[in-house]
């Protein structure tokens, strides 16, 4: 363990362990109100979907399938952010549904009205240039942030670190992004005026899903969610400071969204693929870097906390010192799995992953003060035995092994994906 991560982790909000969600949440009025809100949002979006499905059935089916597929890697990535204390799937679904059903159905009339108000109080020119940059972020960021607030109202105990706020916020943003993209794709089909064609859907999928997807609503939602997480967790700070930080985070999400939608650099960097890429990076990179730093700090804080819980067990059968070190970092966890695969095969890699999950779950149960840990200890020991039988008893990689190969693999895959994407967009005439 080095001193540097400790310092970084100490700067973020502490972890406050909470109990797992139970049927008790059904006794909360907020549970039923949030459920009713989801049902209302679902009904509203079903009407819109029905209209599109009636007019453009093939395009609707294609858009739904493509964007549902796109949601899968995003979902896996977001859930993986909080490897140590994974969020309950039901709450992740709730967050996703809030973004896709409630935030969207509220944002459609709200953003349109605010856009009109900009035209009425300003001018049609102002609305044409800045309407999309001001109206949509204002309504959408509030509606999405309310999704994280809904999670807090329904399951306060499940928001016990800033990272939890990031995960729920990102999941609300992901739900919003996917449904909005489907609506945009079908809007493009209608605008093209060539009937039930899938080409506008595919162009929208490539442009909005891939090219803009990385720094879109998932990112903005994560930033706002971090603020709500801080507001909830940082009980040791004065109320006005917590509220101020939360508002700053939501303002940051709003500002990132405004920058993304703004007409700035619209014509400033010339024409062509490189100019378009430069504008995307210029507008999208600042919030992306901000959230990466935020997630890293929050993750380190949480990792230190749960590592300390496991260290107290002082049982190398449950976790060794090297495994403890590996468990604290996503990169070192991946290196350990990579090392296991190269040394003892795919089954060893799977066993290391399961062992890491079991150790993380054990840490959470220890932090909750669960009196009987035998169930969790048993799972750790079971995976340890599998590893031992495969001749790879410890789930860690020697220092310096693994990362460069994974980095090279990631860079190559990303470059290939960008090249394929670019070729596809150019073929479709979107570049």
């Amino acid at each position, binding site marked *: 363990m080095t001193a540097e991560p400790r310092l970084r982790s100490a700067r973020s909000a502490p972890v406050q362990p909470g109990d797992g969600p139970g049927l008790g949440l059904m*006794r*909360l*009025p*907020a549970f039923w*109100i*949030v459920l009713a*809100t989801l049902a209302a949002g679902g009904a509203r979006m079903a009407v819109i979907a029905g209209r599109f499905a009636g*007019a453009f059935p093939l395009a609707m089916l294609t858009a739904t399938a493509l964007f549902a597929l796109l949601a899968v890697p995003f979902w896996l990535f977001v859930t993986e952010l909080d490897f140590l204390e994974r969020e309950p799937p039901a709450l992740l679904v709730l967050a996703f549904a809030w973004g896709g059903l*409630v935030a969207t*159905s*509220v*944002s459609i*009339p*709200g953003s*349109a*009205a*605010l*856009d*009109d*108000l900009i*035209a*009425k*109080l300003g*001018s*049609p*020119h102002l*609305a*044409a*240039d800045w*309407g999309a940059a001001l109206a949509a972020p204002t*309504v959408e960021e*509030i*509606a999405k942030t*309310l999704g994280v*607030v*809904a999670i807090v*109202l329904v399951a306060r105990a499940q928001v016990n670190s800033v990272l939890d706020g990031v995960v729920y916020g990102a999941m609300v943003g992901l739900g919003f992004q996917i449904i909005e993209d489907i609506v945009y794709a079908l809007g493009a089909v*209608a605008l093209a*005026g*060539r*009937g039930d064609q899938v080409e506008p859907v595919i162009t929208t999928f490539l442009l909005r899903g891939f090219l803009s997807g990385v720094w879109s609503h998932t990112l903005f939602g994560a930033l706002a969610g971090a603020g709500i997480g801080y507001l909830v967790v940082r009980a040791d700070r004065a109320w006005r400071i917590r509220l101020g930080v939360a508002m700053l985070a939501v303002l940051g999400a709003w500002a990132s969204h405004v920058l993304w939608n703004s007409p700035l650099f619209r*014509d400033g960097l010339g024409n062509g693929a490189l100019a378009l890429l430069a504008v995307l990076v210029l507008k999208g990179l600042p919030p992306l870097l901000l959230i990466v730093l935020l997630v890293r700090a929050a993750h380190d804080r949480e990792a230190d906390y749960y590592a300390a819980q496991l260290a107290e067990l002082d049982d190398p059968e449950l976790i060794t010192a090297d495994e403890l070190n590996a468990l604290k970092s996503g990169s070192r966890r991946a290196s350990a799995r990579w090392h296991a695969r190269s040394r003892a095969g795919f089954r060893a890699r799977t066993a290391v992953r399961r062992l890491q999950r079991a150790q993380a779950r054990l840490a959470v149960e220890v932090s909750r003060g669960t009196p009987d840990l035998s169930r969790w200890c048993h799972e750790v020991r079971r995976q340890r035995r599998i590893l031992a039988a495969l001749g790879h008893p410890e789930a860690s990689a020697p220092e310096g092994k693994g990362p460069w190969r994974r980095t090279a693999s990631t860079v190559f895959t990303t470059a290939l994906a960008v090249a394929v994407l670019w070729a596809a967009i150019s073929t479709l005439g979107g570049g």
Partner: protein
Amino acid sequence: MGWAARRQLINLLGALSLVGALAGLAFGLPALDRALPADRPVSADRPYPIGGGVTVVPPPGARVDVTETRPTDETGTALFRLGPVRYVINVQPFEGDLAAAAARLRERITGTTGYQVTGTELTIATVSGLAGLQGGYTAPGRGGRYAVFLADGRTIEVTVSGADLDLGRSLPAIDASTKTLSYSPEAAE
């Protein structure tokens, strides 16, 4: 009040505040929008910029609806109202010929349930020399006219709609206005 009951009350108030905030966005903003007038008087003496370098001289007595008017460098939409008659001009980038532009507009009109294109299309031209096609359409209780022009990779779509009686009164002034459509590449920069 016990701790549990107080917790329930706070939870209820929190949830109601949440719903209140959502209602403010979904219903409050549209209500505020509806409370403010959307029409503005517009001069019939000088060209009005539609967007994408296209201008038109509005008909006398027309008012521009700012909620559906969005001029930009590349594209643009303007909605003028003459009483109950809507006069919409839409400028979009387009790669194709005049017949394809007219077919696209016809498809969008007939895509609305109950709308049918009537009669044959006629060729028309503006004072500035833009060539176009013009036709009519009908719907239950309403009628309308459409026209399409091409200008430097852009399509200029004109649609006029209203009740038959109102249309009859307004069409001469709208036809005169449509003839003033003009495209200037400098204005699009």
